[in-house]
């Protein structure tokens, strides 16, 4: 008496194993597709952009003639905007995180702030542009200035910095806080001298990654009225400005093929900047990653 029909089991095993093999192949294929796209994207940009890349390209202003066009104004504009965005978003973000992790009681208000932050993280960046246009440019009368752009960018990346800082602060163990309290330190002294330094690598990593997102953002500053054609560098925070992505957008949206080439050169510069920022973030994380 055969309870198990070996023939049919054998047959089914075959198809099941085959299905497994085919599925595995498809899954690998999907993963490789993403990697392939990344490869093609980088190859295309290098192939188109490298011939135009030179020192002149970096130090020239934008021009109507492709062979004389450069990104100097956009590069400095980006640095100016980040000079506003970095301190503002760092102070606001870390302050919020310290408040939520160290001071806030577990009540409805804290929960509301937390939900609010995670919702802000999902708001499309262009809506932040509308916010900046209304509040900073029109209501406060800042005009399409570096300051208005920097503040808008700060609010945009604020949720990322808050969440990263909260995680960093949470990993600081209770014991060293208690030891600090035990030595007679007050709460603020403990936060300033013990918790904040211990959490700093994590906070910095999160902040740099958030800033690198801001460097690549285009839409909010476009809505704000940042100029697309600029032949001067900002002199102070009330100057008009352009940034790298907007300059790239300007070149990309022109019909002439040559402008696409210099857009590719600009993209190389932008990607190099992002690569450097990301490497610094990784470096900080690896170097100062102290486990307690």
């Amino acid at each position: 008496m055969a309870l198990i029909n070996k023939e049919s089991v054998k047959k089914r095993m075959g198809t099941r194993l085959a299905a497994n093999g085919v599925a595995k192949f498809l899954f690998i294929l999907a993963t490789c597709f993403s990697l392939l796209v990344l490869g093609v994207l980088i190859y295309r940009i290098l192939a188109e952009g490298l011939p135009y890349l030179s020192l002149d390209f970096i130090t020239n202003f934008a021009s109507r003639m492709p062979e004389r066009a450069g990104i100097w104004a956009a590069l400095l504009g980006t640095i100016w905007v980040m000079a506003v965005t970095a301190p503002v978003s760092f102070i606001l973000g870390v302050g919020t995180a310290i408040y939520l992790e160290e001071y806030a009681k577990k009540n409805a208000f804290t929960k509301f702030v937390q939900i609010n932050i995670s919702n802000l993280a999902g708001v499309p960046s262009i809506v932040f542009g509308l916010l900046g246009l209304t509040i900073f440019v029109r209501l406060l009368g800042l005009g399409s200035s570096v300051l208005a752009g920097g503040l808008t960018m700060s609010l945009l990346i604020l949720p990322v910095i808050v969440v990263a800082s909260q995680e960093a602060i949470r990993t600081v163990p209770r014991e060293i806080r208690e030891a600090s309290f035990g030595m007679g330190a007050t709460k603020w002294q403990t936060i300033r001298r013990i918790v904040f330094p211990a959490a700093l690598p994590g906070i910095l990593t999160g902040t740099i990654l958030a800033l690198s997102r801001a460097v690549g953002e285009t839409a909010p500053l476009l809505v704000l009225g940042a100029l697309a054609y600029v032949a001067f560098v900002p002199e102070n925070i009330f100057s008009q400005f352009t940034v790298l992505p907007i300059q790239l957008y300007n070149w990309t949206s022109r019909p002439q093929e040559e402008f696409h080439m210099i857009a590719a050169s600009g993209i190389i510069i932008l990607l190099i900047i992002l690569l450097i920022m990301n490497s610094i973030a990784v470096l900080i994380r690896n170097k100062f990653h102290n486990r307690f």
Partner: protein
Amino acid sequence: MIQENKSSRSQSAVMEKVVPKLFLICAIISIFTTIGIVFTLLTETFTFFNRISIVEFFTNTRWFPFAADEHADFGIIALIMGTLTVTAIAMVVAIPIGLAAAIYLSEYASAKTRKVIKPILEVLAGIPTIVYGFFALTFVTPLLDKIIPGGISIFNALSPGIVVGIMIIPMIASLSEDAMNAVPNSMREGALALGATRFEVAMKVVLPAALSGVIASFVLGISRAIGETMIVTIAGGSRPTADINLTESIQTMTAYIVQVSQGDTGYGTTIYYSIYAVGMTLFVFTLIMNLLAQFISRKFREEY
């Protein structure tokens, strides 16, 4: 010395009281940001609806704001259709590929492979959207033009849709992989011990167990696609239409806002206010999606 101690102590006592308040202000600014967004969108949208009836806005299928006054049409359906078309194409690309990559990384790949591939995938997520827009216009569109019989317009819905999808793959892959990684190994081992193949374990045990997280990642992906701006602005064109034709130029809500910001539309014109009405619609769409994703991952989370 006692004097010194006293003065330093009273100093720090002041600090103890002031510092928390300062941090509280930081926290409140994030709430003000939300209030600011809602407030600006609402007031300017209100002004817009004083000029254009809200019924027309939501029922008219034509969007021609730049026509002379009495001929101008403000029917957001055309923009919504453009947005949804791009989003749908993006999801057709991103969901199968993202999910397949997630299954491969969490169920098949060795720890070593995962350690190499995951960061590379995350590089894709860190590339600025302007670069993707450039890629769509100068590479994907010409490629599609060669593949598709009859060709394709320079500006079309298909190319930005595909590229938005590619942009979202890492997000879906990473979030889904997190959800699948959270499924305890004992469940896999149980299924394998009963004779299941890896594929059966993935599809019948791990995926159902991680379903809430996986679906939440899809919804977040949709939200990202709806709010994406630069790719659709560069490669999608500026011809709002309620018809669905993937090879022809379209316009999305975000692209319209950019188009108006780029022009010399004066402050106070109907067109100026229209970007807020469009922004409000966009905001509501993405807010619903984000809340839905949070709700799904919280409500249907299975605890083991």
